[in-house]
């Protein structure tokens, strides 16, 4: 018995077509990821801007009151809602007189004052702001925390 030669395969098989479709759709994936990245980065920048404002707020207050006032802060006087050295909610139990965007409640803040070493009396003020774990802003913000710093000096003589 002689075997007849198989004719040459000029078309595509079903499996080949399905595989081609799969590869094409996979090629599109990075494009869609890139498109949605725009939204994510804009949400990130909006959240970062708010975090910066929240970090700069205590600095503005302490700078306005001045070095002498700040050097005894927490001992003889304090402002409710601005504790030193502890992470605290912003606009939590004591919202205070300042109007902030509603998303501010999703942040935590810590304020530290550290005396400067050297002959010139001064305080290094550092404010850290971080999103509350599991909050919307925690997903949006790419940075773990925002830090703002300043130095408060005594009036030179």
């Amino acid at each position: 018995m002689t075997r007849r030669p198989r004719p040459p395969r000029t078309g595509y098989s079903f499996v080949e077509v399905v595989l081609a479709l799969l590869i094409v759709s996979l090629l599109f994936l990075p494009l869609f990821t890139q498109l949605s990245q725009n939204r994510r980065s804009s949400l990130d920048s909006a959240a970062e801007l708010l975090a910066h404002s929240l970090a700069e707020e205590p600095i503005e207050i302490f700078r306005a009151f001045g070095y002498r006032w700040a050097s005894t802060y927490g001992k003889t006087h304090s402002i409710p809602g601005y504790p030193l050295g502890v992470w605290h909610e912003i606009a939590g139990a004591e919202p205070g007189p300042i109007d902030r965007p509603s998303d501010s409640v999703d942040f935590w803040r810590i304020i530290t004052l550290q005396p400067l070493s050297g002959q010139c009396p001064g305080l290094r003020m550092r404010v850290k702001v971080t999103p509350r774990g599991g909050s919307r802003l925690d997903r949006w913000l790419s940075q773990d925390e925002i830090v703002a710093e300043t130095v408060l000096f005594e009036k030179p003589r």
Partner: protein
Amino acid sequence: MNRNGVTLLEILLVALLLGIVSSTVWRLFHFGTLSSREGIRRAERTLEGQRIMKQLRADLTHACSPVASVSPDLGSAEWLEGTMEQSGSPAWLHFTFHAFPGKGSPESVIGPELTGGFQDSSLDRITYSLERASNQGSSLYKLVRRVCPGGGDESREIRQELSSHVILCVIRPVRITDTSGRAQWFFNVSLALADSLEPGKEISERGAGQIIVEMYDLVCPVAFAARWNDLRLVPNWYLRFAGPAGR
């Protein structure tokens, strides 16, 4: 059997699969585009808001009372009242205040005979006002900044439209008091900008399909800080601000 072509069943199956894949691709592309557009608009409004807040901070930092003969015993509340004038009702608010020129030295606007005020003729009069956008159905406002240099000379007024996407802009004086009773005045600025996700669609009220960008700031004018440090305006070295008592 000679299999040069494809069967009808294979064509139908491939067409079905192609339909499913292209439908998924179209959906992904549609949502990706929407998401991208939202991101671009939010970024635009955020940048616009940042620019406005920067301008507001620059102006409010230099805000001061135009009264040339302020009593040294004047309390901070009166000092503040003389600094900011608010008129209109929400949301058509107008905020007017005087400010010494940002490029000039603060000392240049304080006369030698003054006891705590500023030379009115040296000050700029600045007004921030919200005006209704041209489209009646829209809830958006235009935020306009007007500057009358040199004591409020209206013939030299400079008008600047900062944004046409504003839904809220409030400049509010706030008094922050510590537990010992000492207080300081600040300006609390609240700003909210909005945009529609669908091109050409008016924003009539807050709701879905909109981008809202909210921001705030707390500003202590240098004149307030100097005032707080000493009622007679002693030199405030940190702010490079000198009053009559320090001369």
